Every structure is written in C-alpha cells, then in structure tokens.
C-alpha cells in the first residue's frame, strides 16, 4: 500500500532488460554491429515512449529519473535565459521542483509559490494574476505525490500558451496511472520516472516539446542530443519503454479496478471516528488514499501497521525527519496535530480486494489502540 513510493519491476520488463546486460552489452555510440544493434533498441524505446505519451520520438530524452528531468528543465531554462526572470510554481510541488526553485531564487530569479485550495488545487485565475512581463516558466505538477490531487493541466497550458510562457509539469505520479496525450495539452516539458509504473529505478525521461530550448547542465558527450550526455543506461531505457507501453495498454482497466478499491478504502476509513480525507474526493489519482486520524501520530500508526504487515507512508514530522509536518498538508490548511496524524495508502497493480478488506480490518484496531494512549482523545 505504498506504491507511490515505488513499485516492483514487472517480470516481463526484467526479462526484456536482461539481454542488454549480457550479450547486447554494447555502447550505442559504437560504429560496429553490436553498437548499432543496441542503438536500434534505444531508438525503438524512444518511439514506444513517445507513442505512449502522444509525443514525437525526437521530443523524448532519457534521464536518470524525475529529479534529473526537473533539474534539466528548470535550471536549464534559467541558464538559457541568461538573466534574472520570474518562475511560477505551486507550494505543494515535490522537493525535486521546490528545492530547485528555491536555489534559482537564491541565484537572483523571482519565484512565486502559488497557494492551493484545501483540496490542493491551483487556482488558474491566481496563476494568471501572478504573471509578470519577465515570467518565463510555469512548473506545476500533474498530480500530487502525497494527496493525489490532480491539477488542471489543460487550463494551465492555455494560459501558458497565451502568454508565451514555458510550461513544465512534474508528472512522475500521473504517468502510468491516467492517460495523457501531449498533443492535446500545451505542455512544453514533462518529467517522468520508470520506477513509479513497474519499471526499473534510476531511469526516467523528459519530454521537451519541439522548439522548446534549454541549456544543458552537463557537458561531455553528444548523447541525448547533448541534453543529457553520458553513455545511455540501455537496460533502463529498454525497461522504461516496455513498462510504460504495458502500463498504458492496461491503463483503463487498471484505473477502473483501483478506483473501485480506492472508493471502498476511503469509505471504510472514514467510518472511523474523527478521520478526515485529505485531497480532492474525485479529482485525485486512482491509487491514492490520504487520511488524517486525529489524536494520534503518523509514525506510530505506520509502525503499528507495519507490525501487521501493511506498508504505508506518512506526512508527519517524525517520518519526514524534520520537526515540521509535510509542506503539502500545511499548504492545504491542516493544523499540525492533524497533519501529524496523516497516512498515505497508495495502491498498485498487485493489490487485490482481499488486501483492502484486510487493511480495513487492521486500521481501525491500530487507530483505536493508539487513541487509548492519547492524552487528547476522549472516546
């Protein structure tokens, strides 16, 4: 129940990758036959990836993952601009965007961190109002990693196009969960990561629309059209493209199945007293459930669940390793004690109805046990 953290690699994906560790170990840049064969595999992977996203193969760049794609885009666009400018992002981005924006701010750019409503949604009018003549980039995530809330990408894209502002979206949580068609969205950059959709870790991709330009952060070779130099992670690239192809082929079926499980989970969990749902009731990822159990602390809940064989995650301070609860839960207006009692359950391909039934048996027991120890709870 922690698939937003990561997912297991599908068996058929592992099988497809193995030859590229063994007999097909060649370097795609080599002129000889082995190199050419491997080059063909990389380019086929690029075509598959593009097809799955509604993009052109020349618009796909393989990277080390979501964080690298975000850095290449944001830092690269700032570098390309060459003078201070204005970036608009949201206050609930993943740290892989937030921290890059904060660094760019420290380097002289201006950054607006847009507030969100209590569901975690960006307001497009506020976005529009924040634009200044030197705004050169929007970076708004497609779906939030903690609370699963979806952002209005199409509307944000329209605003971006109208004002000729580049639009980047961190879609690490969305890709493989919900269909995406880049032809119909005015998105200029999109980051994705393979291990979120049953692909391998350490490999991701950046979609960069034809005509959009950034200055590369690294130099050293011509790979990925100089945007991401370094010998390609061929097994990873092959694994990513197959995992994405399979995920997209099954996307509607999986979505229906997980949405039904999610709805059942939310209903069952909200039957526990003083429990609230975090995020939007409908506009959320099919696999995301995030609730706060009042009067108890998230890390203790995680430990209690772990002892019963259930893995989840929490936005509490104790589990984040700092003194403050998650910035996302604070941004949607939760007070500290409520944020401390938050738990994220995230479903994956392997989860069944039986898993959800078991979870709904265990959670009330764990919550009740901890509440009996709590000084603020009065049954």
């Amino acid at each position, binding site marked *: 129940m922690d698939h937003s953290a990561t997912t297991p690699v599908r068996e058929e994906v592992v099988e497809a990758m193995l030859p590229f560790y063994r007999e097909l170990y060649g370097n795609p840049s080599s002129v000889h036959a082995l190199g050419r064969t491997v080059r063909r595999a990389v380019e086929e992977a690029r075509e598959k990836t593009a097809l799955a996203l509604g993009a052109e193969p020349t618009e796909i760049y393989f990277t080390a993952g979501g964080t690298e794609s975000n850095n290449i885009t944001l830092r690269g666009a700032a570098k390309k601009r060459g003078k201070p400018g204005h970036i608009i992002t949201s206050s609930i981005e993943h740290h892989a965007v937030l921290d890059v924006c904060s660094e760019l701010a420290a380097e002289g750019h201006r950054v607006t961190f847009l507030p969100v409503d209590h569901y975690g949604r960006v307001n497009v009018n506020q976005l529009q109002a924040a634009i200044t003549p030197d705004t050169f980039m929007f970076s708004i995530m497609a779906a939030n990693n903690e609370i699963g809330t979806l952002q209005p990408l199409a509307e944000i894209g329209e605003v971006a196009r109208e004002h000729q502002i580049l639009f980047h979206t961190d879609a690490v949580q969305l890709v493989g969960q919900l269909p995406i068609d880049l032809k119909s969205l005015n998105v200029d950059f999109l980051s994705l990561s393979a291990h979120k959709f049953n692909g391998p870790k350490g490999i991701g991709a950046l979609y960069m629309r034809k005509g959009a330009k950034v200055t590369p952060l690294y130099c050293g070779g011509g790979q990925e059209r100089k945007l991401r130099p370094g010998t390609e992670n061929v097994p990873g690239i092959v694994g990513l493209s197959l995992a994405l192809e399979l995920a997209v082929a099954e996307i509607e079926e999986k979505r229906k199945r997980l949405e039904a499980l999610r709805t059942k989970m939310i209903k069952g969990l909200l039957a526990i007293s003083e429990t609230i749902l975090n995020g939007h009731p409908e506009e959320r990822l099919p696999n995301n459930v995030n609730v706060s159990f009042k*009067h*108890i*602390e*998230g*890390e*203790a809940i995680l*430990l*209690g669940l772990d*002892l019963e064989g259930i893995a989840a995650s929490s936005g*509490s*301070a*104790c*589990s984040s*390793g700092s*003194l*403050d*609860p998650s910035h996302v839960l604070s941004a949607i207006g939760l007070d*500290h*004690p409520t944020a*401390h009692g938050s738990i994220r359950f995230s479903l994956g391909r392997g989860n069944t109805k039986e898993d959800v039934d078991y979870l709904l048996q265990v959670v009330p027991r764990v919550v009740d046990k*901890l509440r*009996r*120890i*709590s*000084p*603020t709870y009065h049954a």
Partner: protein
Amino acid sequence: MYNERVVEHFSNPRNVGELPDADAIGENGSFKCGDTMKIYLKIKDDRIVDVRFLTFGCGAAIASSSMLTEMVKGKTLDEAMEITNQDVADELGGLPPLKLHCSNLAADALHNAIENYRKGKGKIETA
C-alpha cells in the same frame, strides 16, 4: 530502525491510562514536533506507588513513556528525580539518533510531575 525492545514496549505499552486519584500530574512535550506525554503518579511517603501515562507521539515516544513507568515504580521521589531521558533510552537498548532529542521526553514529564507535587499543586485540577 527500532530495536526489538522498543517495538515490544510500543506494541504492549505498560501502565497506560489515567489515575483518577493521582497525587501528581506532569506534562511535557510540544505540539510543534508532535509529541506530548502526560504522567500520573500515586505517591505514598515520598515514594511512587503507582503510575500511568498518556502519550501523543511516535513509536519512540510511546515506548520511552512505557519504559519510564516501569523504571519509576517503587522509587523515592529523590531517586526518580535522578532519572534522565538518556537513562530511559539506555534502558530501551538505545533509540535512533534523530529520536533522542524530540521523542525522548518521558523523564522530563516525570520531573514536571514531581515538581508540581513538591510545589503542592499536584492535585488533579486539570483533568
């Protein structure tokens, strides 16, 4: 992350609850980092004869609260004042470094209870 002893105290915390006829009540913690402990003492001839606790906090906070209540039963108030948060962590066989400062609050709550008692305002007014 936690050793077996910590997990055991977390799973089966000792002396949970309130003491309706407590002679002293103490509290420690901060809602900022999340953790709060409330401790109830029954005291006879300057000796702790019974103890209960309630804690809002992570696994380490609950385990250290439970451990402390085992350590103080039967101790004189002077002996109890000597117990430190570090003693509680040691008795648990250690806590993760990150938890030592934020979740290890049981001894401070105990000292607070004893100070309240000695100041003569340990009677239940807050309950």
